[in-house]
């Protein structure tokens, strides 16, 4: 058995992965930007970028699981809104409750909403796009009903809650710690638990998955449950971070989550992609967004640039696939 562990083959394998390409691109981006504006790479700015992206990274991981299983979750923004509004309101009426409890509340709410999505998809056999197309409206409507049209403003929230994401521990904000923790937990889930691997199976080849005994329904429910939980957590954090809970919060946020996944190399047909890639994709989006003012592009162009990046990422996907296919074919014969 030849030992394929030489450095050369390791490097070659590493570069075949999307994650490496992203890291490379990130560096390529950062160089000209930091030349233009040295403060970009300052601790303060990096910290801003990371904090801005923390919530998105949490949500993007949830979206990643859904896309991995072959579906899509469009209700993400609405779950964040409902959870965020609920936490805000509870905080307003019961300021004595510790913020940690509010986070748990957010997760619990997210789990319930994700469960509904999951049950509809798995047992109602409704395609995920349609289910979440329906629930994005229903959940948003519920948010309005819950708040009775009012908002929760900074004055009405307890200082401990607002301070939660900002408090630092060894120089890193709690928000970032939570994000790191979530990423680590999800990485562990994806890599070291059976269910985590089964998500790859049902996305990659549902028929084969059935053949080897994977319980497709159970896995689908879990996937939406996790996505819901993460969105619920994100909602609780969102309200605290922006010190407000409004009915329109996080509208359209699902698209950013999906964008992060696409950048991270997640395949829409399911079965391919990794958490690291998604996190890097989020980071990439964050850097680009933050870099706009540096290159004198008004913030108003942010949306356009994001779209362009995703399109380029897709083109990159296709080109690299075509290239790989050509190589494989040439290896075979002819």
């Amino acid at each position, binding site marked *: *058995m030849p030992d394929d562990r030489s450095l050369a083959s390791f490097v070659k394998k590493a570069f075949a992965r999307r994650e490496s390409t992203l890291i490379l691109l990130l560096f390529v981006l950062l160089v000209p930007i930091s030349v233009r504006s040295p403060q970009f790479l300052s601790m303060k700015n990096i910290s801003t970028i990371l904090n801005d992206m923390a919530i998105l990274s949490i949500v993007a991981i949830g979206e990643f699981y859904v896309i991995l299983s072959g579906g899509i979750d469009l209700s993400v923004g609405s779950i964040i809104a409902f959870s965020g509004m609920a936490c805000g309101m509870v905080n307003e009426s019961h300021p004595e409750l510790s913020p940690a409890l509010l986070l748990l509340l957010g997760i619990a709410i997210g789990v319930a909403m994700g469960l509904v999505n999951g049950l509809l998809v798995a047992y109602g056999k409704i395609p995920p796009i349609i289910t979440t197309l329906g629930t994005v409206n229903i959940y948003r409507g519920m948010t309005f009903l819950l708040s009775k049209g009012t908002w929760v403003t900074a004055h009405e929230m307890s200082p401990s809650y607002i301070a939660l994401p900002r408090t630092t521990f060894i120089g890193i904000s709690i928000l970032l710690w939570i994000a790191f923790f979530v990423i680590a937990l999800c990485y562990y889930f994806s890599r070291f638990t059976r269910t985590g691997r089964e998500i790859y199976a049902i996305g990659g080849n549902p028929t084969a998955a059935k053949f080897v005994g994977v319980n497709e329904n159970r896995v689908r429910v879990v996937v939406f449950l996790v996505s819901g939980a993460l969105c619920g957590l994100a909602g609780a954090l969102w309200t605290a971070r922006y010190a407000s809970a409004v009915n329109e919060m996080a509208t359209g946020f699902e698209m950013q989550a999906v964008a992060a996944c696409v950048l991270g190399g997640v395949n829409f047909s399911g079965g391919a992609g990794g958490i690291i890639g998604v996190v890097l994709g989020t980071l990439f989006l964050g850097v680009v967004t933050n870099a706009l003012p540096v290159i004198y592009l008004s913030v108003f162009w942010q949306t356009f640039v994001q779209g362009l990046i995703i399109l380029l990422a897709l083109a990159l996907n296709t080109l690299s696939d075509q290239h790989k296919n050509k190589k494989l074919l040439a290896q075979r*014969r002819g």
Partner: protein
Amino acid sequence: MPDALLEVHNLTKIFPGIRALDDVHLTLRSGEVHALIGENGAGKSTLVKVLTGVYIPTSGTLTFEGKDISFRNAIDAQAAGIVAIHQEASMFPELTVTENIFMGHHLRNPRTKTLDWKAMTEQTRQLLGRMQLDIDPDTLVKNLSVAKRHMVEITKALSLDAKLVIMDEPTSALTGREVEDLFRIVRSLKEQGKAILFISHKFDEIFTICDYYTVFRDGQYIGEGKVADSNEDTIINMMIGRSIDQLYPEHQMQKGKEVLRVEKLCQLGAFKDISFTLHEGEVLGLFGLVGAGRSEVVRTIFGIDKASGGTMSLLGEPFSPKGAKESMKRGIALVPEDRQKQGLVLKMSLTKNISLPVLKQLSYKGLVTRAGKEQAYVQDHGSQMEIKAAGYHVDAETLSGGNQQKVVLAKWIGTSPKILILDEPTKGIDVATKAAVHQFVCDMAQKGVAVILISSELPEVLGMADRILVMHEGCQTAILDARKATAESVMKAAIATTVMEDTHA
């Protein structure tokens, strides 16, 4: 004779309109390699599906290890120790070899309850080593060649502690050395006391590796016996049940002018240097083992795939189609290999399927469909093929395989092709329809249509073709005159690695 592991008695499986299995018997023993022989449509794959729990028998019994048993689903069968080697169906292309083998029964670290990748990779390495396979467990399956994927499938079966291993045409995508590897594995499985059901139509393999055989024909049990006590002729007789002449109608070839000339046609990764000419009224058989590249060649002629080199000319004019539409305009029709995915739109009615290629002609100014004209056209061509269905409005998916093929043929004769290409037209259909298809091909040739007939069945290609072009691994190895060719000479060409000397163009 070792003890019986699995016995099938009086097994019948009926689908609407067709009796796939009719009162069949089969006895599989541990430590024995048992060949299941039969033509296409004899019921072999149906039996496999029953054994693996995919189909539930209509009647009959299954006895496993002495006990009557019935499988509710595929998982039951697997739990009992029955594993079938499929082609692509069971692989996860984006995952590693290790994971493909362990999906569904990952190993866990007993202390931490997490997945133990180290142990799984190590076990995979050992399994692959036992089979002397040079594959890195961390490779993604999508980066493996078809042959290697096959090997991984087999390795998977081993990891599942199978008692009965079913192999359905396992060497179809393998080359010489890989076939030997496979045989080595089969022998070691035998020594381990496993029962092996080996489905193949290749007699040389059957006589090399199998101990026992059972023959099916038209869904019925015909006979069985020890391989050592038998020979090819007796088995072929059992398979076909009638002399070859009856199945393949005579036709007088009246070779007309040249309609197609192909020179050094290549497609990267699929085939290279294919050269031949085709004449009006002749039937050119295209023979080769599965994976030889024949379908790719005809798809390129039809314009679905692109050539990477070489030239084609149609009636003297250069021809490089950019799509099926262009080929159709120039008079080529292709009856594709995959009837259900390529030949028909299953969820559309027969009418809509049959009229699909010629919609423009059946419509007013090429746009507006004319129901009356369409109906008349469909009735005309449908009745020519004698399709058995409750009406032309039914969805194509409700028809049996043979009738579906008739619909595909009806669809294409309406385009009045000058060149008719048929890719495995009799695969998976009953013998009566088979004969009808063969008669149809002869009629077409009689009318002056040039026919290319791809087939993996020696008797079919010998009986139907005027000339036989043989391919192997993407290369053209011979063009033989069918009247002078024998089964041996054709098979020799089909496994040859170089172009054979004695070819008659």
